[in-house]
């Protein structure tokens, strides 16, 4: 064992970018090392598209699906759902569990800044979202859904959506206090929101659509449906609502997030 560093000397900090790359790398490693979690993250959306394809594969363009074919409608909403699942749902549950078993406290005891820890999580969520969406688009192609043309708009929407739902996921993890309750709380919030936002079925009820338009899920669905199915560019007004929810989530997270399993 070597001698200790000179006592009392101020130590330099690791460069922010070095820390970030390091954290992203190990966050990825932790994820891929748990094969069950990795497989289910990617199998779930694929299975979902396959089921929808089997049920509605033959339904062509109709006013019920807003002038789209059933699968043109469902590919973007399932893409949104997969982003919600990995960024909001899984993140809230994983953070609550990591806090409860003391992993977060141990991280907090190291010089890793909080921003780098969360940036590692966000990078992971963005990556998973891109893989999920690519899989969904691929399976949709097998059912004859045309490939989208505005890839840049889709990428920008996915990054913004992943960031906003990550912020909301961290916010929910900040508010709930025990890991056992985390999946139930996360689902309780998400499930009704998915229904009224048209994820499972198109909503033809103007008042409900207007309300859902101010909540986070419907704007995300809409912002993806445009570039996916309608050959439209970025949908700024819906992205603005989504970003606003991201700011709300981040504010709650910054104020309320705890690293320590035991409250004050």
């Amino acid at each position, binding site marked *: 064992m070597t001698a*200790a560093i000179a006592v*009392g000397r101020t130590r330099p900090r*690791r460069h922010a970018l070095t820390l970030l790359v*390091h954290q992203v790398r190990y966050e990825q490693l932790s994820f891929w090392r748990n094969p069950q979690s990795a497989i289910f993250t990617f199998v779930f959306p694929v299975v979902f598209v396959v089921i929808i394809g089997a049920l509605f594969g033959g339904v062509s363009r109709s006013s019920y699906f807003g002038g789209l074919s059933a699968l043109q409608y469902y590919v973007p909403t399932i893409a949104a759902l997969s982003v919600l699942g990995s960024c909001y749902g899984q993140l809230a549950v994983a953070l609550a569990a990591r806090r409860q078993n003391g*992993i977060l406290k141990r991280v907090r005891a190291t*010089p*890793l800044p909080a921003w780098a820890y969360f940036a590692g999580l966000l990078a992971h969520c963005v990556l998973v979202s891109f893989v999920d969406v690519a899989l969904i688009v691929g399976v949709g192609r097998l059912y004859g859904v045309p490939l989208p043309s505005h890839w840049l708009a889709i990428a920008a929407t996915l990054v913004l959506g992943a960031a906003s739902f990550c912020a909301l996921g961290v916010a929910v993890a900040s508010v709930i206090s025990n890991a056992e309750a985390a999946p139930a709380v996360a689902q309780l919030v998400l499930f009704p929101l998915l229904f009224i936002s048209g994820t499972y079925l198109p909503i033809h009820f103007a008042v409900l659509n207007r309300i859902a338009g101010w909540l986070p899920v419907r704007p995300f669905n809409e912002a993806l449906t445009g570039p996916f199915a309608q050959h439209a560019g970025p949908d700024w007004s819906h992205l603005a609502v989504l970003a606003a929810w991201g700011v709300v989530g981040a504010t709650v997270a910054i104020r309320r997030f705890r*690293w320590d399993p035991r409250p004050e």
Partner: protein
Amino acid sequence: MPNAIEVTGLRKSYGSVHAVKNVNFTVRRGEIVALLGPNGAGKTTTLEILEGFRVRDEGSAVVLGYDPNDRSHARELRERTGLVLQDIAVEPYLTVRETVARSAGYYSAARDVGEIITPVGLNGQERRKVRTLSGGQKRRLDLALGLIGNPELLYLDEPTTGFDPAARRDAWELVRQLRASGTTVLLTTHDMDEAQALADRVVVLSAGLVVAAGPPAVLGGRDRARARITFALPDCGAISDLPLPGIEQNGAVVVETANPTLALSELTAWAMRRGTELAGLAVERPSLEDVYLQLTHESANTSAPERSTR
């Protein structure tokens, strides 16, 4: 050289529970200090205030020259301190080596990963997944994570709980090596042998107060306490035949004396004259545990018992 830790008038309450009422102590650089005390005495709360996890209500705390609650120095302090927590907290799917390497990447002056795995006794286990390790091996990994940043100050919260006796000896040796290289250590333990073996000084907490502090050898005046000479009464004699007054206790004779050298000489001379053996002859002074139990018992009787904060 300034002290590594200075704690003055520290107070912390959780609602109506006064976990820490008035705690004062210092830890000099390069020293090993053990915080002792029953569950709920305030050890963990004190440690968590110093580590920056909890905010004190009153008093002052200075760690390596900084206030642990001052967020502008938090990162600097974390660079220079290491923690080994009571709860095992490592992600299950990484290997031992990956887990240590991940932590190493957080510090600017980290030790070499290979260089830390051997001293904690995990050599040969580098490629094993953390979830396949035994409880004792996970504790060793925890120790490695506490040391990887090459800390000037190391907090050890019951570091050898769950270790087998050989592993415990190895861990003690490691802590002694750290002291030899200039590392300051503040540890909590319920194991009086551990405090005796490692600590330069011990601080005994009870019900949120410091009830005694000092080197383990002299704590509570145990170096000046009367020695107890014990032996089995020989068949050929009665207790009244002894040259010194003794009492019979659990089938053995106990002679208390302030001058054990002279007393032993008289007793052994008496036995030799009679051609007999003093079976099980032993000289004892109060152990650290005896003194500790007495100190914490006394203070527990003078104040209401506190609810454990853990």
